[in-house]
């Protein structure tokens, strides 16, 4: 068995304000390459909190987090930014596209930041990603000219630009209607099954979760099923 792309070991987190409360209790699990996993649970069970820790954006926790077999503890802010840039793709509930840039440039930004390829190559990759997601015709529009479903697909293309080890989603279909949810789900499934992309999606849409390969269910800051 190959090394897991993401491994959480005994992760705990406390909120100290207004009083000490443990929101995550000794969470341990692994995600393998090509796995399409979802995290479900009621509101306030700590699933989003967990995701922010796993994505390295939140560093205030106990326990160990390995991404690509590398320990995240003790890394500096700039090093963590580099890990996010290179190894993690992120899709949020809200699309967070920058209206100042074209769709294509929005997708390119993390690629330009990684600075491994020339601007021309990044542009070509970005265009390919848009093609996979079926929105290549919108490449030169501004994000505010797109529909909600299209925006979310652009956000997915942006998450994929650096061919990340793992794509994380925080309620990526939370703001979408039935039809667009279906489209996004099909895209995720295609990415997992055809491109071997690992995915970890936090959702409270049980129907969505049922169709993923693996369900991690949380309650009161602990995993009750995985």
């Amino acid at each position, binding site marked *: 068995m190959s090394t897991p792309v993401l491994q959480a070991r005994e992760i705990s987190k406390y909120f100290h304000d207004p009083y000490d409360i443990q929101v995550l209790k000794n969470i341990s699990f692994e995600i393998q390459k090509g796995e399409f996993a979802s995290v479900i649970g009621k509101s306030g069970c700590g699933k989003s909190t967990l995701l*922010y820790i796993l994505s390295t954006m939140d560093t205030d926790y106990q326990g160990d987090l390995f991404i690509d077999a590398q320990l995240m503890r003790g890394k500096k802010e700039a090093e963590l930014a580099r890990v*996010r840039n290179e190894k993690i793709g992120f899709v949020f509930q809200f699309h967070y596209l920058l209206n100042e840039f074209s769709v294509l440039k929005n997708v390119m930004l993390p690629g*330009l930041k990684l600075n491994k390829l020339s601007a021309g190559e990044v542009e070509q990759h970005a265009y390919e990603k848009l093609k996979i997601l079926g929105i290549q015709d919108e490449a030169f529009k501004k994000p505010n000219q797109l529909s909600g479903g299209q925006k979310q697909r652009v956000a997915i293309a942006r998450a994929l630009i650096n061919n990340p080890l793992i794509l994380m989603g925080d309620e990526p279909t939370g703001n979408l209607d039935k039809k667009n949810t279906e489209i996004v789900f099909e895209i995720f499934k295609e990415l997992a099954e055809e491109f071997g992309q690992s995915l970890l999606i936090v959702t409270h849409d049980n129907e969505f979760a049922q169709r993923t390969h693996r369900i991690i269910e949380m309650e009161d800051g602990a995993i009750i099923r995985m």
Partner: protein
Amino acid sequence: MRLKLIISISKALLLARWKQTLIAAIGVTFSITMFITLLSFMTGLNIMLDGLILNRTPHVHIYKEILPSEKQPIDYTSEGHHFISSVKPKNDLLDLRNSSVIMKSLRNDPRVLGVCPKVNVQVFYNIGAVDLNGVLNGIDVVEENRLFSFSDYVVEGDYQELKNIPNSIILGKGAAEKMLANLGDNIQITTSRGERVQLKVVGYFQSGLQDIDKVQSYVSLTTAQKLLGESNSYITDIQVKLFDMNQAPDVAKEYRQIYEVEAVDIQTANAQFETGTAIRTLISYAVGITLLIVAGFGIYNILNMMIYEKMDTIAILKATGFSGKDVKRVFITIALTIGIFGGLFGLLFGFLISSGIDQIPFKTEALPTIKTYPINYDPRYYLIGGIFSIVTTYFAGYFPSRKASKVDPVVIIRGK
């Protein structure tokens, strides 16, 4: 390439709020414009006013002062303290002894730019039955012009005729008006020895200081010596101009000891001018810098606002792998762009306004050589203005950008 990315993000943010950006840049432009204009004008005036006195004043003035002797004969013969009342100076000539030797050795001093001898003659200008007090300066015309730009102050006539025409005089403008003397007229003067002499008016002299112009006139050195009935070695003053004015106090002290004469340096003689200049310059700087700091606060405010408005953008940049340092660079780039463009236009407008002021006619009786308002185009002020605009905007951008770099993406994304 990374820099290019940061610049392209900065540009997008700048253009998204271009009206505010423009206002911030105009603030910088305005302050730099005022800074340049103010300093150019102020220092131009300073130089002119100082020149009025300093150009005409020797750096070291050597003369003989008739004073009671410090040591009375009894001091040479017996010890102790002597009480001597009613000590008077000895009747003596104002002639500098050994003047030709002193001048020769001064001319060999490497610090000395030039030496100019002078003879002061007390006279009366005779206008019919009225006698007016006057002072004639016997000068070496060529040297006087080289060292003290004599010709600048000769408002009518040719100064060289003083040398070429015997018994000629360049009259002070005020004196000439009283005497109703035209160019080419002969005027009559009485010397202190009681002789009456006719002198031909070849020019008018105007120093800008009315009291001087009423009294002072110029003749050649030989004419002055002739009026006094002295030989051609008779000299009352030696004016020395140095290469470096700041050496004057030391040089004066040295000459006092070597030649046993009175020697006064320009700093002692005209202390008030340096003080005035320094304070005027200080005020100009203070006003200019205050304006710039105000502009800096404008930039600070606008960047702060931009950061609040663009919280989402900052959060997503950080979530997708931009570090705090990158975000900081973006906002500093924005601030510096405002500073550089605002500053450049400020320098340009400052130059245009000061050249505008330079064209405004400014004629005054007191200043014969000045035709328009004086402006000093010293590139130093442009350099200071440029550097200052960049430094202020950098600091105005630094604090907001530090705040932006510390934005926690989790808080923003969670908040939605």
